């Protein structure tokens, strides 16, 4: 091999396809792959994913389904809900699971195995073992303190008697942190937690965004469909904390929104917001203040994000950082956010258009005032240096340099 001409190669392992990224995990994994390619790497992706959760057109050619009827869906013989991600690791590495299919897809020349989130560590470890004396480097991309997040999800969903599950997840995270040659953390707070478990480096790799530019035709189309009065945008995936946070911040009622305005909801969270609105004591108020768009194509979402007068970041739980936070800050529109949602973006909290509100009354008041008053204008210049730091290219510059240093 000629080091001068050798293109480094990386295998990106995830528990979700990234061919058509929608939720935060997909977007981050995709951005990492793009950063690798931009840095001259050959990138292969492989997802071991819940078959029922992703449409056929969202899957990559090498992605492998984790069937719902697989015995690996059970934890210690029990059917535990909301745990397919954790269980995918054992399935992927098992001889009677996905390993025979995966082995056939692996590139013989592999410099780095990159796992996003700890779930596929068993698969990564098997790949490293099978490579013998010169295994690829292992990069562990942490997106959150997963055992804490899973505990919160279980509590919200009413899943009891799962302490052993939480302990297993925590053990997996610690093993990934200790085993990896490099660990990436999305926030400085997470980096401090992870650093306590290893002697090696933990690299701060915040979430970024891709930026967007809406087409004129799409803007006109959406302007006709969205309210004429200033309205607020909430974009999120169906991740349970997103719905819970939305109604927690509003105190279960959207009456603070003027009658001619709306909270416009985009993303897979839409259906869950609707169901929760119908079940609420204040259902007619809430339903009269919601406009639900569902999942949008990229160009439609770009137009909707451009037209929004106010961004809402009602995140109340979970670690990590949120890509939607970065998009909201980048938009230069007024933002009403919880301090949890600004985790990883604390430097931006003092911008004039950002209102931090952690109590229900303050959150409602901020939304009402922002929708009634003339919003303060932030920098009107095209991208200020502070906002450029939100883009993926800037966020992943240092991590890619450290990964590159692993193999050179």
């Amino acid at each position: 091999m000629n080091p001068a001409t050798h293109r480094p190669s990386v295998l990106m392992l995830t528990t979700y396809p990234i061919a058509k990224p929608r939720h935060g995990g997909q977007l981050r994994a995709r951005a990492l792959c793009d950063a690798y390619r931009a840095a001259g790497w050959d990138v292969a992706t492989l997802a071991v994913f819940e078959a029922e959760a992703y449409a056929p057109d969202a899957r990559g050619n090498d992605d492998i389904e984790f069937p719902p009827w697989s015995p690996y869906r059970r934890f210690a013989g029990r059917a535990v809900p909301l745990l397919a991600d954790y269980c995918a690791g054992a399935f992927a590495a098992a001889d009677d699971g996905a390993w025979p299919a995966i082995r056939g897809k692996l590139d013989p020349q592999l410099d780095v195995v990159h796992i996003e989130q700890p779930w596929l560590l068993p698969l990564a470890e098997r790949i490293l073992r099978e490579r013998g004396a010169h295994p690829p480097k292992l990069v562990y991309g942490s997106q959150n303190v997963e055992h804490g997040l899973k505990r919160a999800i279980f509590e919200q969903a009413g899943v009891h008697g799962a302490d052993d599950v939480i302990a297993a997840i925590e053990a997996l995270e610690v093993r990934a942190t200790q085993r990896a040659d490099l660990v990436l953390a999305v926030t400085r707070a997470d980096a401090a937690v992870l650093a306590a478990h290893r002697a090696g480096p933990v690299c701060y790799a915040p979430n970024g965004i891709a930026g967007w530019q809406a087409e004129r035709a799409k803007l006109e189309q959406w302007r006709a469909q969205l309210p004429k009065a200033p309205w607020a945008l909430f974009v999120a995936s169906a991740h349970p904390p997103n719905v819970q946070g939305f109604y927690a911040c509003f105190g279960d009622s959207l009456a603070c929104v003027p009658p001619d305005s709306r909270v416009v909801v985009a993303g897979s969270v839409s259906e869950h917001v609707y169901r929760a609105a119908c079940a609420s004591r204040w259902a007619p108020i809430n339903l009269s203040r919601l406009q639900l768009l569902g999942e949008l194509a990229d160009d439609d979402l770009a137009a909707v994000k451009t037209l929004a007068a106010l961004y809402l970041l009602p995140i109340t739980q979970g670690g990590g950082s949120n890509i939607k936070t970065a998009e909201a800050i980048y938009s230069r529109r007024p933002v009403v956010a919880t301090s949890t949602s600004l985790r990883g973006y604390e430097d931006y909290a003092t911008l004039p258009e950002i209102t931090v509100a952690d109590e229900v009354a303050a959150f409602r008041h901020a939304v009402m005032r922002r929708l009634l008053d003339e919003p303060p204008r932030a920098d009107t210049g095209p991208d200020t240096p502070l906002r450029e730091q939100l883009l993926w290219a800037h966020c992943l510059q240092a991590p890619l340099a450290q990964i590159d240093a692993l193999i050179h």
Partner: protein
Amino acid sequence: MAHIWLDITTIKGWQRPPVGVVRVEAECCRHALAQGGASVRFCCFERENRRYVELSRDAAAQILAQRAAPSVAEPETLRATMTGRAKQLVRRAIWMLPARRQEPALRKLASVYRFARDSYAFARTAWQRMHDEIRAARAARAPIEAAPPDEALGTAPFRSGDVYVSMGLDWDHKDLDYLYRLKKQLGFKALLFCYDLIPVLLPHLCVGNVAPLFGHYFSGVAWCADKVLCISESSRHDLQRFCDTVGAPHCDTAIVHLGSDLRTNGSAIGDEVADIVDTQYILYVSTIERRKNHEVLYRAYTRLAAEGIVLPTLIFVGMQGWGVGDMMADFELDPRVKAKIRVLNHVSDIELAELFRHARFTVYPSLYEGWGLPLAEGLAYGKFCLCSNSSSLPEVGGDLVEYLDPWDTPAWTARLRWYIEHPEAVAQRETAIRERYRTPTWDETGTAVFAHARSLLDDTDGGGPLNAAVKSAAALREEAA
């Protein structure tokens, strides 16, 4: 010149003599016609066409005249006449029989009559219950269909600077989200009413799942109104607490007391009421529904009957409402109180006045009220009241009546016994009422309403699309801090 627009949609669509909320709108309409002058005009909302239209003064006067009270007495007179004739015919038929057969025939007829009456009562209760269930199920299946935020606004006669006044059954007849947008576009002000938030606070005592719908309505009031007139401090407090709960903006509020002068023009008193006023009775004027808590009086009376107390008749005057079918059957069938509880409805104003005048005293054990008009009416006739201590009722009765916990059956039993056995105590109370109680009149209500409307007319600051008086609870706390 700016105008005050009085919305009379409710009385326009009302087919009976005005009561309750409808009465308030009718009395304000009467006041406006008599004293409003050219600055007061009339309108109504056509919900199906989604527009406001002006009504002329003549049209408003005609609507009001058609809804006047005296016609209530006429069906009652007719019924009394028909009942009397039927009784006469039966008596004649019995007299025609041989003497030995008259008594058995009478007993047989009485038995048939009781069976028919009980069957009718049972069928009516069952029908009412089924109707309530159907209505509740329909309401539960049909969530609010919010109009798109930018649907085209219909026509309206209002101009910038005008004041729009509405006090009717707005939760049924109006669309406040639509009014908000219209107000924002045309720049007029709105004076709205708050009677009570009972469907929001005590939904279990209301038919169907009405709490969410009323929640939407009151949030609309908060957004639309430049000022809200509340009929009591209790209602004002409830409204403000509701706005805090749901996050709706706070707006200016004021208290307006409802009149309690009865109109006594017109017709004769029917036989039934005429018979009653010659007896000893305690009077409770109210619709018969769970919130009004007739149950506590029934229970107290069963205990008093068991004690062997000589009891005056308990007269309930009011239409039967929701969820009381079983209790009504108990009144009929419980031998302990059967002859001691009587229910009257379709009572005219003049008959009601007579019932008040001749009652030993009144009772008002309601669980919750926005004001308590019958309590005020009883006081206007100088009558002492044994009254619930809940919500707005102490504002009505002051220190002139005695208050009890509406859930405390032993207390009601004890105090009923006391006042039944101590008429001198009742007389003392009545003396104090005669000396100190001042009856608020409907004319005063109308004067107050239009004074508030004129103050909004004169207030050139604020109003328009953005309600200058809108403050959220958080802003108020910020300012206080």
